[in-house]
C-alpha cells in the first residue's frame, strides 16, 4: 500500500536512485544530468528542475554525492557531482530493492491479469 506521504517518499527515492545511477557513469553537472535523464528515458521523465537541485543537495548532504567546481568544455565553472563510496553502496542496495519491487509488481500484474 502506498499512501499519500509514502508516495512522495517513494517518488523521491526513485529520483534519488536515478540520479545516483546517472552520476555513477562519471562526474556530471546538474544541467547535463537533467538532459541525460530526459534523453535516456526517451523524454518519459520530464524532470522538474525544481526537484532536481534540492535532490542533488540532499544526496550531497547524505554523503552519497561529492561536489566539485570544475571548468566545463566551454571553459565556464560548473558544479560537478560524483559518487562516493557510500553513494555506491546506497545505489547498489536501492537497485536490489528496485528489482525486487518491479519483479513483484510484474508478477502481480501477470498472474492477476
Amino acid at each position, binding site marked *: 500500500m502506498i499512501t499519500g506521504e509514502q508516495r512522495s517518499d517513494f517518488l523521491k527515492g526513485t529520483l534519488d536512485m536515478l540520479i545516483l545511477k546517472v552520476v555513477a557513469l562519471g562526474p556530471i*553537472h*546538474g*544541467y547535463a544530468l*537533467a538532459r541525460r535523464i530526459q534523453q535516456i528515458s526517451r523524454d518519459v521523465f520530464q524532470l*522538474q*528542475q*525544481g526537484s532536481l*537541485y*534540492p535532490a542533488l*543537495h*540532499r544526496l*550531497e*548532504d*547524505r*554523503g552519497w554525492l561529492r561536489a566539485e*567546481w570544475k571548468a566545463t568544455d566551454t571553459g*565556464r*565553472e*560548473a*558544479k560537478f557531482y560524483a559518487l*562516493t*563510496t*557510500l553513494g555506491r*553502496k546506497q545505489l547498489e542496495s536501492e537497485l536490489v530493492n528496485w528489482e525486487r519491487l518491479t519483479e513483484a509488481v510484474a508478477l502481480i500484474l501477470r498472474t492477476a491479469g
Partner: protein
Amino acid sequence: MRWYRRFFRRRRAETQLDAELCFHLDQQIADYVAAGMTPEEARRRARLEFGGLDQVKEECRDVGAARFVESLAQDMRQGLRMLRKNPGFTVVAVLTLALGIGANTAIFSVIDAALLRPLPYDRAEQLVNISTLHLNGNGMVISPDFKAWQEQSGIFESVGAFTLGFNSYSRGANLTGVGEPARVEAINITPGFFRVLGVQPILGRSFSEAEGQPGHNQVALLSSAVWRREFGGDRSVLNKTIHLDGMPFTVVGIMPAGLLYPPGDLWVPEVLDASNSLPQSADWRMLYVIGRLNPGVSLAKARADLEVLTHRLDAQFSPGRRKARSRWHVEIIPLRQLLAGDVGQLLLILLVAVGFVLLIACANLANLLLARAAARGKEVAVRAALGASRFRLVRQFLAESVLLAALGGGLGSVVGLWAERAMKQLIPPQLPADVSLDPRILAFVIGASACAVILFGLIPALSASRVDVNEGLKEGGARAGLGRGAHRLRGLLVVAETALALVLLTGAGLLARSLMRLTEVDLGFDPHHLLLADVWLPVTLIDEPQRQANFFQEALERLGALPGVETAAATTHYPVSVFNALTTGVLISGGPAPESGQAISIAGVSPDYFRALGIRLREGRFFNSQDAASARKVVILNESAMRRVFVGRDLVGHEISLYGTKGPWREVVGVIADTRNYTLEREPWPEIYLPYQQEPSLFMTLVLRSKGDPMGLAAGLRRAVASVDPNEPVSGIETMDDVVQKLVVPRRFKLVLLGSFALLALALGAIGLYGVISYAVTERTHEIGVRVALGAERSDVLKLVIGQGFKLSLMGVGLGIAGALTLTRYLSSLLYGVKPTDPFTLVAVSLILVAVALLASYVPARRAARVDPMVALRHE
C-alpha cells in the same frame, strides 16, 4: 558535518548556489538559442520551465537543517535501541545516575530550607540575635544592658526581648477556666517584640507600649496553635479573660501560624522597670534579645558599637560586678543562624557524602561507557571505513549519553522526592519545614550530572573515533578500540571509586561505633517500666513551700495506691534530662573549699526516688520519711560529686552548705552510684540530692515504677493528680524508655543516612571493579587460553585475574585511608566514645572493601579459569 560547514560558510554557499542555478539557466538558454529561438524567447521559456527560482533555492538551503534534525532523531532512535539491547548496562547506568541525582537534590533542598532561604519576615536579613558572652558561656542578656540598648538610636531600628518562662519563675503556666486545665508555654515578651519582627496578629492587636507598665500588663497574645488546641479556633475568645496560674489575662490578639520566633504557646508583656532593670536593682531579668539593624549597618559595626555602649555602663555596677563585666563580650549573629543552630555542619557533611556518591556514580558511568566503547570498537571501525565522519560518531555516542542522562534525571527526581521526605526531619523544628523539591535545584543537579555523563560519554567517543580504521578491522573481534591510555583511565576510576567509598564507609563505621558505644552506656538506673509526668504548681504558690510539699506528698500517696504501681516517687531532675538548678557555692563545714567553679546539680527528690529508678547505694543510707521539713537537714551525693568536688574525702556524717557560708548546713547521709544525669553522652555530672520536704519546689516530675506496661498507668495518674487539685494539669507523660530512645534517634538517623550513602558507594564501587575486571578478562581470553594451553593451572588463572582486582582495590584502600584520615575529623562533633582516626574502624572498613573487591573480581576470574584453550585460541 556538512550542515555546520554550511552554517559557517553560509555566504559562500549562497553564491555557489546562485552560480550553480545560473549556470543551469544559461545552458538551457544557450541550447534554445542553438535550436533557433530568439534570446528573449529562450530566456523566457527557460525561466518558465525552471519554475520558482527562490523556491528551489530555499529547498536547497533547507536540506542541511532538515538533515540535522532527521539525523538527530535517528541518533536518538539508535541510542534507544542500543540501550534496550543492553538492559544490564542501561539499568545499572540509569539507577546509578538516579540515585546520585536524587540524593543530591534532596540534600540540596534540605540545605536550602535550613540554611539559605530567608526567614518569612519582612526584610528578614536585618534581623539579628544579640547576646552577651559571659565567662561561663551563658548568652543571656541582663535587663540593664537591654534597657541601654533600647535607648540607642544609631545601630538598631528597634530591639525586643523575651524571658524563657512565665513571670521569670516558671517555664510556662497552668491555663485554667477553659475545659481541662492545661500546661502551656507562656512567655513574657517586651511589648514591641512582634513589631521588631514585623509580624501582625491575624485577629485583634499587638501589645501597646503602655502594656509594658506595671498594672497594665494583664493582657495576652495567643499563638495560632494554642488558639486552635485549647479554644477550638473560636474567634469570640478575643477580649475574653483567661487564667494563667490563676491570674486573669485579657486576650487581645491571635498571632499567625508558622511564627518561628519567639518560642511559646502564648505571650504576655514583660515589665522592665526600676525594680528589675537598673544596674542597682536587686533582681535583674535574664533576656533573649533580638534587634532589627538599621539599613546599611554591618554586623561587625553593630557589634563594635554595641560593645562600647555596653561597657560604658560598667561604672554604674558594684565594684565586684564591674570587674566581671569588663570581660563580657557582645555577640551579634543573624537570626537565621540562631534558628538553624548547628545543623549546618551535619548538612555539609551529608553534602560531601552525596557529592562523593555522585562522583562515584559518574565514575562508574564513565567506566561503563568506556567498556562499551571498547566492545564496540569494531562497529566504530566499520562505520568509519564506510565514511561516517568523526563528528557523526561522536554525535551518536553523545545521543546515547544524553538519553542516559535524561532517563537518570527523570528517575532521579522521583528518588529525590522520596529521599527528601525522609530527610525533612533534618531541618531544625524552629524553621519552616515546607521543603519542596525546588525545580531550580533539580535542574541544577540534573544539569550537572548530565554534563558529567556527556563529558564521560565523550571520552570513549573521542578516543574510539580516533581509532585507526585499518588496525580496528584487522584485529577483528570486539577487542579493537581502546588503547593503553583508556585502560589506565578505567583503572584510575576504579581506584578513585574505591577510595571515595572507603572514606564514606569509614564515616558510617565511626557513626555506627558511636551508636554502639552509646547504647552500651551504663545508665546507672533501670529505664524499663518507668512512667514520667510533669506537674507544675502555679507561680502564685511561690512563697508557700509547705503547700508545695503537701501537694506532692498527697499526690504520691494516691499514686502509690494505684493498682499496677510498684513505687511512686517524685524528683525535680531525672537522669538524662537537662538540669534545673546548679550551684557553684558548695562548702564543707570546717574543711577546705572544694574545687572552685565546678557547678553541681541540685535535685529535690522523694524518699522512694532512688528505689523507684533502681539507683544503687554506695555508702550510708537513702532518704526516708523521717527526713521531714522540721527534721535535721540532710543530703545525698553521687559518686562524681564525691570524687570531683570533694576529691574523694569520705563525707558521710559531715556537713556541707550548698550556697556559701550562710548555710543552712546539711549532713551528708549517703552516697549513691552515678547515673547518666545530663544527656546520655556526658559523663555523670556531680549532683547533690535533697529531700523535697526540706527544699520544696513548684515543679516536680512524678516517676512511677510499674508492674506492667508503664503507659497503662497514664489515665490513673491523671485522675490521681486531679483528685488532689482539679485545676492542676499533668504534662509530658512518657515512658523513660522513650526518653532514652529519643536521645538515640537523631544519632541513628544520621547513621542511617550516612550509612546508606556509604553502602551505595560500596555497591557502585563493586560494580565498577567488576566491570573493569570482567572486561579485562574478555580482552585477555586469548592470552589466558595460551597460558592454559602451555600448562597453567586453573588456580594460576584465578590468581592472575583476582590479583589484578586485588591490586586496584589495595591502591584504592591506601588512597581512601589517607582521605579518611584527613576528612573524618570533621565528623568529631557527631562521634561518641570513638576517635575520628579509630584504627579498628579503619581496619574493619578496609577489610570489608578488599573482601568486596575480591568477590567482585572472583566472578569474572572464575569465568577466566573455565576458559577452554581451544575455544580461546579460536577466539580471534
